[in-house]
């Protein structure tokens, strides 16, 4: 596999992203290493080919944002909105992730080895998020579809206004948000957790996880009104 390196201390980010958009798709199997990210925002946003990007250091906002088929590994921590709106592919944060990790993701797999901040998986529309540590308050807020596995604890208002996304939590849940409820785990749920843990390289017993999903009582504005609004 061809391996290239960009030193963000020397090269402007715009050049790196333009290379990833315009040149990478025609290069075949390609690995791009980004060094000295120094918290730069928008590293490797909008990937549209199966390129592998390694970021050695901490990334700022929206690293791997809107990824399609690419693989991004951050050997450090990630700022707000890592992998936001990812369509497919994989983003792996070896350290911690800030707020809104995986916000509005449509597909792909986001793995965070450490903790994630507030609103992890907010507006999730598909795909999977696996967090090795804990997640902050308002995680999975209005999450519409997809799956989240949280190996640590969850903060306040987990799954507030949930639609069809399903959350699995190993640790304590400080509080559930409006319309979220704990449901019994089925064999299919154990299989899902097991599969996602394996895909993320994490080792936990699926039987230790709880399932959180929507009670669907907010789906209609006022059930008594029979939609005669």
């Amino acid at each position, binding site marked *: 596999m061809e391996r290239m390196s960009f030193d963000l201390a020397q090269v402007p980010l715009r050049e790196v992203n333009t290379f990833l958009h315009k040149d990478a798709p025609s290069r075949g199997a390609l690995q791009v290493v980004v060094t000295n990210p120094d918290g730069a*925002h*928008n590293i490797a946003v909008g990937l549209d080919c199966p390129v592998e990007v390694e970021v050695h250091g901490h990334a700022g*906002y929206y690293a791997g*944002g809107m990824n399609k088929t690419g693989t991004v590994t951050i050997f450090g921590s990630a700022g707000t909105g890592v992998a936001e*709106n990812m369509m497919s592919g994989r983003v792996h944060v070896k350290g911690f992730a800030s707020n*809104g990790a995986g916000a509005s993701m449509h597909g792909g797999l986001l793995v965070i080895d450490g903790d994630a901040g507030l609103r992890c998986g907010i507006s999730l529309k598909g795909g999977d998020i696996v967090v090795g540590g804990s997640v902050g308050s308002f995680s999975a*807020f209005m999450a519409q579809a997809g799956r989240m596995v949280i190996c640590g604890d969850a903060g306040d208002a987990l799954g507030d206004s949930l639609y*069809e996304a399903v959350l699995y939590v190993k640790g304590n849940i400080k509080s559930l948000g409006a319309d979220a409820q704990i449901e019994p785990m089925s064999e299919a749920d154990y299989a899902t957790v097991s599969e996602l843990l394996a895909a993320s390289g994490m080792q936990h017993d699926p039987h230790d996880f709880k399932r959180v999903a929507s009670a669907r009582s907010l789906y209609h*504005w006022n059930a008594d009104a029979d939609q005669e*609004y």
Partner: protein
Amino acid sequence: MSSNDHPKTIAKEASFGYDRKTIDYIRNAAAPGLYVSRGMGAKRLLPNFDDLVFLGASLSRYPLEGYREKCSTRTVLGTRFATKPIELEIPITIAGMSFGSLSANVKEALGRAASEVGTSTTTGDGGMTQEERQSSKTLVYQCLPSRYGFNPDDVRRADAIEVVIGQGAKPGGGGMLLGQKVSPRVAAMRTLPAGIDQRSACRHPDWTGPDDLAIKIQELRELTDWEKPIYVKVGATRTFNDVKLAVHSGADVVVVDGMQGGTAATQTCFIEHVGIPTLAALRQAVDALEDLDMKGKVQLIVSGGIRSGPDVAKALAMGADAVSIGQGVLIALGCNHDSYYQGGAHHDATADYAALGTAPGYCHHCHTGKCPVGITTQDAVLEQRLTPEVGARHLKNYLKTLNMELTTIARACGKQNVHHLEREDLVALTLEAAAMARVPLAGTSWIPGVSGL
């Protein structure tokens, strides 16, 4: 003489505080325990562009011949950072309205008409449809708090991106689409179960505040390799500050939507009681750009109750670079008409209006999905009442009319370019409009709050 000698009179001392409308409101609130939602924008009487008039040319100014002399309407948007700015033939654009609130036929009609007259159309809260991308030469792709159907492929095939912070009909609120309109196709595009009452988020999921927005805008620029203009749309409230913050965040174009701006479904309390009139917001927006020395560098689009050519001319004279129209466009397509045209003939629709408890000219029942003329519906039968060809023809004529009226006024004011219209060309007919627009009351030099009488 007994009191029986006089017929009993019925005393009808009306109360201003508890008039018929208020009594009906309270009775309605008490019946289902549910607030009222509806379509269209604010219906109350507001200071608006009708309260301004132009000072045409005379001895002190020199007019252009009304029909023949050149008067340019070319409009360029997004010149600040984008390497591929939007170039339009006319300064009148089509506002963002979702597939979901509108049928796919209507979205296609909007695209066709806009392309024929050389202007842009805009997606809405629900993603980009194939129909509108194919039919629109210039398509603005909205990035909304809900991010329904938001897709990097659509970002790449859009001509500009509009980050929507708010909407004039409901600044501070998210969209609403009641279950009747969440058809299987709409639901799939939004990743929601079909038939639910859908309420969109009011906050973006991945940023909070203007400093974050600056980074979000940068992300969209990086994603598109700095080619496409980025618009920021705000509902009119604290417009002076909001426009400054949008500029600070790196917007190429700021869109300000006043409280007359339409909606397909919003709580009436929101429509009528939150936000400020377009006229007041426009002046604040222009002041903000002038204060930052960004006038002409960051373009301003104003929307919310723009209906006619004179409205467009006044908005431009006040300092807007372009206007955006939603409700007026729907009316041009047939909204609130008493009939619809299908299969080569006109069909009376008044019975369908009556079934909704309304009549042509009063309908605001977009939220029900039962639009009698097939515009704001997802119903397979109703949507056939508006075909893209017929809709596009009417809309094209409407836009052409507005543009002719605009150039007529510009020529009368002696301008070879509609963008040369200026505030100095305007005076106000009412004190309220004079104070809000900060132009003098007609026949005086008095601007309330600025100059003495």
